[in-house]
């Protein structure tokens, strides 16, 4: 599904990613762990196509297509979803309006019929029920006045509604208390399917107790220094990131 080859990227002229290789197949959940400033969020943003991150070398193939040639909206329509580390407020626009606009943009691209208000509502209600999230969320302006936990849950709602092929969760666990973490994790697990893949980006092993990954990669100083199964995360938790930093040398 996703193939990243020798990816180099910079922000403000500073090289952050220094040759990433990663391959993900449909049905897999991968976790990328790493210390602060190792390039985790940069990788997430490069995948989503944020313009401030400049790719200087390498390529990314998404279902055989060259991802780097696509605009952010094209990537979303092709099935990439980024759950933001810091979701953005859009005052005056309700969640429901925003979601409907996004869903219909994606459906249109995929040659599906656009949903009217009634069909949309029944679709979104079903997802909310699955995620155990209150419907009142729909009538609130996008992320305005949301608590940290609510914002992260809202990202999961968007993900559920847009039904992406590849979901990238950028530190979705950060700042969540244990109850909110469980809600988010259950949401993600309920969306785990044979046809899609999930990339979890996290600093802590904690999330991986709830969403058990098939593969764990450790990112340090812009490179994946080691990869393994879910046990690698536990090992990492025990030994700390200093253990990893030695791998760079």
């Amino acid at each position, binding site marked *: 599904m996703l193939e990243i080859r020798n990816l180099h990227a910079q922000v403000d002229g500073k090289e952050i990613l220094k040759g990433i290789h990663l391959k993900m197949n449909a049905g897999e959940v991968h976790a990328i762990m790493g210390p602060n400033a190792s390039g985790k969020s940069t990788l997430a943003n490069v995948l989503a196509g944020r*313009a401030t991150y400049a790719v200087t070398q390498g390529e990314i193939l998404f279902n055989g297509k060259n991802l780097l040639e696509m605009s*952010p*909206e094209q990537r979303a329509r092709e099935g990439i979803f980024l759950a933001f580390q810091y979701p*953005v*407020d*859009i005052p*005056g626009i309700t969640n429901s309006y925003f979601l409907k606009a996004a869903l219909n943009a994606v459906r249109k691209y995929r040659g599906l019929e656009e949903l009217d208000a009634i069909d949309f509502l029944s679709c979104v209600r079903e997802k909310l029920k699955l995620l155990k999230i209150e419907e009142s969320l729909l009538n609130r302006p996008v992320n305005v006045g949301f608590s940290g936990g609510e914002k992260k849950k809202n990202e999961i709602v968007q993900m559920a509604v847009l039904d992406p092929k590849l979901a990238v969760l950028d530190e979705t666990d950060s700042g969540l208390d244990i109850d909110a973490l469980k809600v988010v994790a259950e949401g993600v697990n309920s969306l785990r399917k044979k046809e899609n893949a999930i990339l979890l980006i996290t600093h802590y092993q904690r999330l991986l107790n709830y969403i058990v990954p098939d593969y764990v990669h450790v990112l340090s100083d812009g490179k994946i220094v080691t990869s393994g199964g879910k046990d690698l995360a536990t090992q990492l938790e025990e030994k700390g990131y200093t253990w990893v930093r030695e791998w760079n040398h």
Partner: protein
Amino acid sequence: MQEEAKTLKEITEEEYQWGFVTDIEEERIPSGLDEKIIQLLSEKKGEPEWMLEWRLRAYRHWLTLKEPKWANVHYGPIDYQAITYYSAPKKRQELKSLDEVDPEIRKTFEKLGISIEEQKRFSGVAVDAVFDSVSVATTFKEKLAELGIIFCSFSEAVQKHPDLVKKYLGTVVPHNDNFFASLNSAVFSDGSFCYVPKGVRSPMELSTYFRINAANTGQFERTLIIADEGSYVSYLEGCTAPMRDENQLHAAVVELIALDNAEIKYSTIQNWYPGDKNGKGGIYNFVTKRGKCAGKNSKISWTQVETGSAITWKYPGCILAGDNSVGAFYSVALANHYQQADTGTKMIHIGKNTRSTIISKGISGGHGQNTYRGLVRILKRAAGARNYSQCDSLLLGDKCGAHTFPYVEVNNSSSQLEHEASTSKISEDQLFYCRSRGLSQEDAVNLVVNGFCKTVFKELPMEFAVEAQKLLGVSLEGAVG
């Protein structure tokens, strides 16, 4: 990214959609302005002597005035002698029904999406359509007449309801109010007139559609709305013009009068031709609009969506004379390309416990310059007066500007005033967030701007709000730099 640049370019070069010219025979008087022209104009319209006298009084005063230069707008000199002050579709006789309206004019209104007949049948909106200088058709007149509501062209009101016109004309915007109001008072050609009698709630929205068609013509319409005691009326106004390379002058006057316990809601979608993307052509929109809450507990609200015109100079205000009267001003003003907008409101608190609300949303894109200018004046006897003002500016690029000039004069210590203001640039984060959910760059800008304008749009009647949103979408294209 390349694809994106291409679409933006295409869209920037998209032309004004309402810019066609209708080919009809017009009757015009010679260009230029003097007492003879005014006499001729008045004669053409078969006006009574008092109306001509009123015009001449305004004209003589106008001669003593200088064009105001205090607004934050820049334009070359206007040659008032080069303007034609009267242009009308030719061979106009008394029309018995809408079917007699010149088919070319009907086609124009259909192109504009306001087929008069369709409106008549389905929408329940009574429309008065003003084409160049003359009111072409007023729908639903009979139905309104059953309730005693008078809704007709201004010219007709002068003929058929002279007492009402004489009683109220110039009582809110006097003939000597300002340069452009005096000019309008001298040469106004037509417009709409509405009187809602005591205790009557108008069952439908009343609407006027203004269209400038002829070249080198000024449009000077005059609207007068009177809501008698305990009555209610909601009034909509829309405007478009063909694309022309030269600038055209539009100097309208609107007067609203609300008596005891009456309410007037006045909504405008102003979409005059704004000029091309290089700033060539476009309408100069110098308009004086004012409402007087003459009676106690009366209410006047102005809601405007200003997307058009090369230059907008417009301050719809409220004189809150009656005790407990309420004034409101809700505004969205967009200045894209080389448009300049200097707009805002005046709230004059005279009566006790008068309240006013001002919500202004200015959006600047391209090289556009957007200015909010507002005055809140609390007079000595206005005990307990309150005002809330909120002025927000949104910048879409780095070559545009937003300016705010709030003036406050308070002469009563028991009044309360609040003012909030903000200026922000459309955030890359918001746009990226929307795009990462599948929305195009244009849709993302639209969404963020619509959210920004939400508090104003919700004041508009339903269908008008939808039109305003669409119009804003079209006008925004290519605004993000």
